[in-house]
């Protein structure tokens, strides 16, 4: 980026808040995905006014602009695919207002997900969406991606917890949408903007709902000798109307990887485990815990362990939340998908994943949100071996195609970004995609904000990048 432009940006956000040297920007070429893209510069605005000024500048100079939180995203949503200015919100990380009575908070986009929950814990509240990266990821990123997490099974995803937004449109207008009271008047624009993957506006303020912490949480670990038994137990729980707060599955391959790293007490000889939370009133959690144990036993669980205290519970969850980091120790690179299937199709889909693994000669691990049918098949590969990488991608694509063929979708919580744009035609016709692009064009004319995301650009899948060790620090899903 030329000196005149840099000088102008430095004037807006301060000289120390602009990065432009290649070595300084290295970190910002990556996110949690296997993609790489280099911005022309990185800016760190400290206020809404600065964001407005940066947007106005980008618009005037016709420079692409991309928003970014902590860069933990898994689909390349926060990468500057087309270069330009990467706007990082890490300095806008204040909780602006805490309204315990109405169970709401107003936060800046750079507030870290877990920090918000920690800040309101003394009031008996929390921010319910809990991506596995919650210790690092930001609320702004959660809003842009409509993030999920294990407990969204019972509590809903980010969009169910956002009341209102302040945002800067690519045109430079500062707008407020939604309301801190229920049922905003007019079109539900907040509902449209949440999950738009940073392609409609830069979010500068978020009013979120806070949720009361449950009186009691019980964590169960159901251990199975056959994967089918575990998946059938999940399908049966759903069919019987047993609704845990979270229901996660780890298969044998993943269990061994996790146990070697976290020492969570997982059985390494099992074919699969279900990690299940039930919560609510003491009496309700007790009843649900019995129901869950009953269903698991009916499906031949070898053992159903109930965590005896919060220490054991935290350890079991630590295993799950660090599962992907554990995989990173075994394999320098891996490819993770995020398909969703109807829960009745879980047993058949897991069988199909195994067949696909055999067909391509790759080992496929499964660590996922079983309760809502959100799969995360992990295909490890050695990035130095192009053939291995090709097979990993081909196997992943075939899994996704299978998900769609049984009525599912290509992404449950990671977003489309630049990783899955080429898969969008599996879900939407050309006319349907064109219509969505018209919506983008209305708010983001010319696509200057976060260009070439969500919608397919003409290119082959051979262009997917990989890098050794790219996932080893991430704790995904």
């Amino acid at each position, binding site marked *: 980026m030329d000196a005149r432009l840099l000088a102008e940006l430095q004037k807006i956000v301060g000289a120390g808040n602009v990065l432009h040297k290649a070595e300084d920007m290295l970190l910002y070429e990556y996110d949690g995905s296997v993609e790489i893209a280099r911005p022309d510069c990185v800016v760190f605005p400290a206020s809404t006014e600065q964001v407005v000024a940066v947007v106005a500048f980008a618009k005037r100079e016709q420079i692409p602009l991309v928003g970014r939180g902590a860069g933990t995203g898994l689909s390349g949503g926060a990468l500057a695919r087309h270069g330009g200015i990467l706007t990082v919100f890490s300095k806008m990380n204040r909780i602006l207002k805490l309204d315990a009575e109405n169970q709401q908070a107003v936060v800046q986009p750079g507030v870290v997900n877990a920090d918000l929950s920690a800040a309101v814990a003394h009031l008996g509240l929390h921010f319910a969406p809990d991506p596995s990266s919650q210790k690092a990821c930001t609320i702004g990123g959660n809003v842009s991606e409509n993030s999920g997490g294990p407990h969204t099974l019972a509590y809903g995803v980010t969009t169910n917890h956002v009341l209102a937004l302040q945002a800067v449109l690519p045109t430079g207008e500062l*707008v407020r949408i939604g309301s801190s009271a229920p049922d905003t008047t007019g079109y539900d624009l907040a509902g449209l903007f*949440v999950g738009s993957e940073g392609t409609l506006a830069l979010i500068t303020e978020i009013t979120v709902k806070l949720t009361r912490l449950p009186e009691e949480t019980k964590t169960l670990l159901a251990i199975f000798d056959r994967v089918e038994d575990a998946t059938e137990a999940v399908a049966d729980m759903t069919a019987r109307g047993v609704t845990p707060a979270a229901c996660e599955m780890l298969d044998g391959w993943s269990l061994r990887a996790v146990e070697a790293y976290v020492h969570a007490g997982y059985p390494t000889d099992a074919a699969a485990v279900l990690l299940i939370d039930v919560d609510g009133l003491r009496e309700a959690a007790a009843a649900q815990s019995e129901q869950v144990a009953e269903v698991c036993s009916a499906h031949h669980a070898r053992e159903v362990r109930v965590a005896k205290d919060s220490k054991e519970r935290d350890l079991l969850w630590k295993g799950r939340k660090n599962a992907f980091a554990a995989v990173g120790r075994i394999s320098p690179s891996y490819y993770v998908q995020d398909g969703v299937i109807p829960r009745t199709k879980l047993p058949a889909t897991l069988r199909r994943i195994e067949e696909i693994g055999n067909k391509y000669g790759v080992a496929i691990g499964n660590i996922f949100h079983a309760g809502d049918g959100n799969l995360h098949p992990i295909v490890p590969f050695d990035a130095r071996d192009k053939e291995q990488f090709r097979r990993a991608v081909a196997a992943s694509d075939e899994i996704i195609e299978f998900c769609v063929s049984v009525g599912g979708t290509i992404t449950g919580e990671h977003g489309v970004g630049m990783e899955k744009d080429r898969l969008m035609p599996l879900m939407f016709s050309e006319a349907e995609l064109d219509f969505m692009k018209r919506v983008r064009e209305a708010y983001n004319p010319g696509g200057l904000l976060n260009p070439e995301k969500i919608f397919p650009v003409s290119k082959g899948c051979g262009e997917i990048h990989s890098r050794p060790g790219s996932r080893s620090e991430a704790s995904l899903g």
Partner: protein
Amino acid sequence: MSTRTDSVLAQLESIVDAGARITAPEKLSGYAIGGVSPAIALQPSSAQEIIEIVKFAAAENLAIVPCGARTKLEMGLPPRKYDIALDLTRMDRIVAYDPGDLTLSVEPGILLRNLHQELGKHSQALPIGAPFMTRATVGGTIASGVDNPMRQFYGTVRDFILGVEFVTGDGVLGKSGGCVVKNVTGYDLHKPMIGSLGTLGILTKINFRTFPAPQSIRGFTAFFSNAQEAAACRDAMASSPLRPLLFEIVSPGAAKLIESSTSATFPGAPNVPPGILSADSWTVLTCFTGGEPVLGRCEAELRRMAEDCGANAFARIGANGAVPELVQAGAIFWRLREFVPIALEASPACTITKISVPPEQIDHALAAVRHATEDHSLPWAAMARGVGVIYVALLPTARDEHAMKCVAEATNRIHADSERLGGHATIPWCPTEWKQSLNIWGPQHGDLALMKKLKSVFDPRGILAPGRFVAGI
């Protein structure tokens, strides 16, 4: 109808069968909005037919108002132009239902009661009860954005619609979401369509997540001498671990209305047994689901909270009656859901104001209603949902200029006070001839330009229900 319109409409013959074209004036009056009938009503049976109708209408510049059972067509402003009523009641199929996955896909014209019946066979439920329940369709319920008491626990349709298919104002078949419980593929276009009164697109398919039907329900009633105490009980509940299925505060006036509504005026509605409501108290009605230990605990805690807040009576609904608990609870919850139709029957000029405030402001909002109405001695009745949504029925005894002025003054104050309390208000129902004088959508905000942009994408020629929505969108 002009000859030009006649000859233009004749061209629709090639798109829709004779049996699905309604032109007889006496039948068309059943589609009237604000006294204005369309030139024709069409009953398409597929998305493809709708696309052709819309393309034709766009080319001929004819305005379309989509509708279902027409129970809520009077909401919003009257359309600026109204040529074609698009009656979707023939599109009433269940497209797919996977009880094991708790997912469902339906066409918009399906009646809520038929859908509930089908779900009931699998011990499942969809918490979209709506006013005019016995006649209402799923599509109309979504397009009108109405809610019901169960939102306390389940949220609104916004929280459990998984995806939709729709036809835009230029005849594009669009799609949003899918039919699985978790999905972030593409824009959530269906969210702004909820409550859009048909101004964005015509729903042709709606996918939902379903819920296990509550196995046992127990209702409770508590009487308070004023609104503050009742609201304090809500606040106490909200900061407790209790999670009721519903929590409703009923004003004395609303209790009177409900008690006087009988199964004679509302066919199929069970009568409300005595002792559940009090015409000289503020009543809190709530109910819980769960096993016996859960229900016992809820009863004990709720009783304590109610008494701490000053309740002068607390009872389990049906505890001492001969009628089984569930039937009694059913009768009263039926009435809570149907509060709007009950109120509309009660006054020649009933005006319903919907107030939304952060929930802790409920008592302030109710006080604002009291102040706004007392100058004109305007009778009113209110039903406040625990989430912060209050339906206020203003009940003038006459439908004349003077009554209109009183109502306009009162609603203007209610608008202003709602905004002051961090919320907003709208007027979903009022006499047609008052619509231009009352500010039915409330004060305008800075996001109007963004809404207009969305409208121009969905309906570039402005032929879908033109003028019904906010600021005449």
